[in-house]
């Protein structure tokens, strides 16, 4: 891979075609977004629609600039980001370890199964009032809800990944005299890496749902709080701005996971 390979003319043409197609797709993507923003902006400024209700790109930009100047933007973003990331890490970490335990012991697995099924089906938000009473109304409660929403999904996804380990490879390791611990370390964990990555991706979404829902219920700061507050005082510019910021943050977090994926499973 070090020296540059020699390609035939035909292959170069093919590569160029591939590149051109990629560029075209990207260009259209950007164009669609730009068109959407322009139509939105025009519709609002020409008053085809009521800009008070639909807001507009320029109003959103102004609103974000305003938040930024008041010095609140950073604090709100940081609050939500912190709750999301902490909730995400705890859900993923605890979920992974629990799944390992369940993989290890068939008895535990059998015992836990009905609980997992019920907890998975339960809309976690129903526990809201209880959580407020148990943990209070601060960031802690929001992290708690975030963990609750992500945890069961993390456990089920990871357990699935562990259980899908190739039986023949297990047999092979056993024939070499491997202990269960060695089977776990040498085979089950590395072979479930793709499942781990897809679990991370799913849990990014779960964590945002958890933190925003949590903020709807109890918070005094954060992006979810801005959305609720904006709705209550009918400042829809604020709601739209908060949603926009949320989009950006979620995309960045997803991109980080995608980067991790690239680094970790480049050889398969």
């Amino acid at each position, binding site marked *: 891979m070090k020296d540059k390979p020699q390609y035939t003319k035909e292959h170069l043409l093919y590569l160029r075609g591939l590149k051109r197609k990629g560029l075209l797709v990207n260009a259209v993507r950007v164009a669609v977004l730009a068109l959407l923003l322009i139509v939105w902006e025009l519709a609002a400024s020409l008053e085809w629609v009521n800009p008070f209700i639909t807001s507009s790109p320029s109003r959103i930009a102004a609103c974000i600039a305003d938040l930024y100047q008041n010095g609140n933007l950073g604090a709100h973003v940081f609050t939500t980001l912190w709750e999301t990331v902490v909730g995400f890490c705890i859900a993923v970490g605890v979920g992974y370890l629990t799944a390992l335990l369940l993989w290890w012991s068939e008895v535990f697995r059998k015992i836990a199964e009905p609980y997992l099924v019920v907890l998975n089906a339960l809309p976690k938000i129903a526990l809201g009032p209880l959580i407020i009473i148990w943990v209070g109304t601060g960031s802690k409660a929001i992290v708690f809800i975030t963990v609750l929403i992500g945890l069961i999904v993390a456990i089920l996804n990871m357990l699935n990944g562990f259980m899908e380990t190739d039986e023949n490879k297990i*047999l*092979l*390791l056993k*024939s*070499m005299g491997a202990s269960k611990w060695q089977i776990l370390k040498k085979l089950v964990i590395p072979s479930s*890496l793709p499942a781990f990555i897809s679990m991370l991706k799913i849990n990014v979404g779960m964590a945002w749902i958890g933190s925003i829902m949590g903020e709807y219920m109890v918070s005094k700061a954060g992006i979810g709080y801005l959305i609720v507050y904006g709705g209550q005082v009918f400042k829809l510019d604020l709601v739209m701005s908060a949603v926009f910021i949320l989009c950006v943050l979620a995309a960045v977090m997803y991109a980080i996971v995608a980067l991790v994926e690239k680094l970790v499973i480049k*050889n*398969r």
Partner: protein
Amino acid sequence: MKEVLRFDNVCMHYHTKQGETVAVKDLSFSVKEKEFVGIIGPSGCGKTTLLSLAAGLLTPSKGKVENGGVSFGYMLQKDELFPWRTIEKNLFLPLEIKRKCTDENKARVLALAEKYGLKQFLKSYPSALSGGMRQRAALIRTLALDPNVLLLDEPFSALDYQTRLSVCNDVYAIIRNEQKTALLITHDISEAISVADRIIVLSKRPATVTATHALDFTENEPLKRRENKAFSAWFELLWRELNA
């Protein structure tokens, strides 16, 4: 010559919720040192069970498996190389499992890899190798712990016909070269005839021995054997026995 493996009236029953399966019944045979034994039997008759019993991964429900403390190397239908490890790391896997990752052992494995044409692939991942090369790597991995007896469970059946013939030839040569005892399980009669010193025919499930034949070829190379006149006679005989 010394016996390295002996089955004495071995029975094996599997218990599941659906019921009891008798996979092996009153099975008796023995394998001598450096012998290459082919075992043929209809599919699902209990061949894999037989190898697991031989390797001590299963304990028989009845009877006795004696393997006099010899060590086994297992080779499966697919190469089962770990895709996240380089070929070199795959070859070292048995050493890691047995905590015998000494420089000396590593050097021995690398020497085997070099001797059998894997040197240029050591730093590659398995996905970069052809099916035949991968199976060869799997064999070297099996040889890493220098086992006395190789247990081969249809090791070529996942390969296409052309590759199968040549890989079979290679693997056979390596096993003879390294002077190993081997137990090859296959449902391919011609494959068994082309490599084995002795062929054991198994019945339908539950598996038991229906016939044993010592092959008397003068040449030992699989591809040469296939050209021998006696080959088709053996094939017909075994075909009839297998389908009796």
